[in-house]
């Protein structure tokens, strides 16, 4: 029931930034909306639970390239699962968010990955696993290594963040943006190196490497 065809595809309008659809997926209260709000408005506050879907946009300046994110922030509760599934159609990127203090949310993120794989062709979407709430270190239930290992085994990008403390939030979106932009470039056969900070040797590799510090 959700729209799919209406989203302008990357590179649709010459001279305009490429538009990419990014979906935020994950259990309830892991901080999906908080990550989006921190990234888009550099703000952190008590956010009402998302019912259905919320939307954000942000232009990312990568130096050499410029792209625009259309962020689809989905409802996290299990009950909304069937609705949210419809929203990741046509996505170019997905952030699978979990709460490092809740093991169940980590398992749920793995479930979301399976759903994504069913709906979209592998390799078509840039997927990043994001462990949020590093500010609650003393309550941690999922270690950094566990997250990293799982991400590596599935060829996902991986980072830990804190939307509250603004730790690595922009980095997450920038890493996804760089990956998307690189893929676009390679798709168009423009593989030559550029003067921009984004070069082939510097970009985080898509498969098997972790870009978290």
């Amino acid at each position, binding site marked *: *029931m*959700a*729209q*799919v*065809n*209406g*989203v*302008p595809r990357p590179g649709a309008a010459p001279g305009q930034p490429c538009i990419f659809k990014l979906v935020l997926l994950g*259990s*309830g*209260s892991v901080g999906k909306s908080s990550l989006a709000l921190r990234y888009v408005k550099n703000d952190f506050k*008590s*956010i*009402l*639970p*998302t*019912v*259905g*879907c*919320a*939307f*954000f*946009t942000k232009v990312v300046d990568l130096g050499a390239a410029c792209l625009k994110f*259309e962020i689809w922030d989905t*409802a*996290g*509760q*299990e*009950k*909304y699962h*069937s*609705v949210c599934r*419809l929203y990741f159609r046509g996505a170019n990127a997905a952030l699978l968010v979990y709460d490092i203090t809740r093991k*169940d949310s980590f398992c749920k993120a793995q479930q979301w990955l399976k759903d994504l794989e069913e709906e979209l062709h592998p390799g078509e979407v840039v997927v990043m696993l994001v462990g949020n709430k590093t500010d609650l270190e003393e309550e941690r239930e999922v270690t950094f290594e566990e997250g990293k290992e799982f991400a590596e085994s599935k060829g996902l990008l991986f980072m830990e963040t804190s939307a509250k403390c603004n730790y690595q939030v922009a980095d997450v979106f920038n890493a996804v943006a760089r990956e998307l932009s690189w893929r676009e470039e390679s798709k168009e056969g423009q593989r030559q190196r550029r003067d921009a900070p984004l070069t082939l040797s510097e970009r985080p590799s898509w498969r098997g490497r972790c870009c978290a510090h």
Partner: protein
Amino acid sequence: MVAEAKKREIKEAHKRKKIMKERFKQEESIASAMVIWINEILPNWEVMRSTRRVRELWWQGLPPSVRGKVWSLAVGNELNITPELYEIFLSRAKERWKSFSETSSENDVEGVSVADREASLELIKLDISRTFPSLYIFQKGGPYHDVLHSILGAYTCYRPDVGYVQGMSFIAAVLILNLEEADAFIAFANLLNKPCQLAFFRVDHSMMLKYFATFEVFFEENLSKLFLHFKSYSLTPDIYLIDWIFTLYSKSLPLDLACRVWDVFCRDGEEFLFRTGLGILRLYEDILLQMDFIHIAQFLTKLPEDITSEKLFSCIAAIQMQNSTKKWTQVFSSVMKDIKEGDKNNSPALKS
């Protein structure tokens, strides 16, 4: 220059005076409406509720002092819930909270996995603090924190088949603001038992699609230009209606305005929820026509805060819920029939 400033000042003063006068008039009409509701309508509820005069008065908005009472009466108590029954389910909920805090692992009892139930109890706790945070009354330590917790907890024990669904906390909160605890629970359970609410809160996809399809019939008829604009972006109603319908606008509109929508929703039923949606679209039609997909989605899922009841209600009033010859319920049942037949023919268009 001085004369100009003076002129401006006089104009401002006039404006202020006019606003004051209007406010005074408004307060007076609320006061007189209250007298009519208390002395005439409520004692003769069954006889008077559907008279033209009462319906018109109802449309103007219920005086806050009788709002809860009228909502209760209008929603009814088909489920025959008594305050005693509420106490029973509440004590069950309390036992459950206690056992969860004592033993974290337990065997599966009623077919619902412990982890799921625990997640749901956890979620209620989290959501309560996120319900109308700006009012500071539902948060921990606030005067209504425990009541909201109790009602949601008791409901999940009363209706394990529906359980807790995000969005419910807003509905319960609005009821708590207008009713006593047990009455709020009774209204809550009965409200959620209405066909439309039940379809949404069970996340019954195919039923939801039927509601959206019916909505689109009236959308096209009332706002054809905007309808085509949305179509051109393949922007389907679920994008904005899910949030509006699930929370009965309590999350999307300012609280006083949401209460006015609830007033007429109690009078007219589910069709008014969709009519309100069309009213919102009509109110912002000119702006929306200039927007693309993502900006429309963004706008409608986060409406401007300065939306006023006068403007919205005049837009809602302008929405015709009579499609050529059919009413909402008739269109809805024909959509149901079409889809059933479509299923028989294996129509792929309906499978999304």
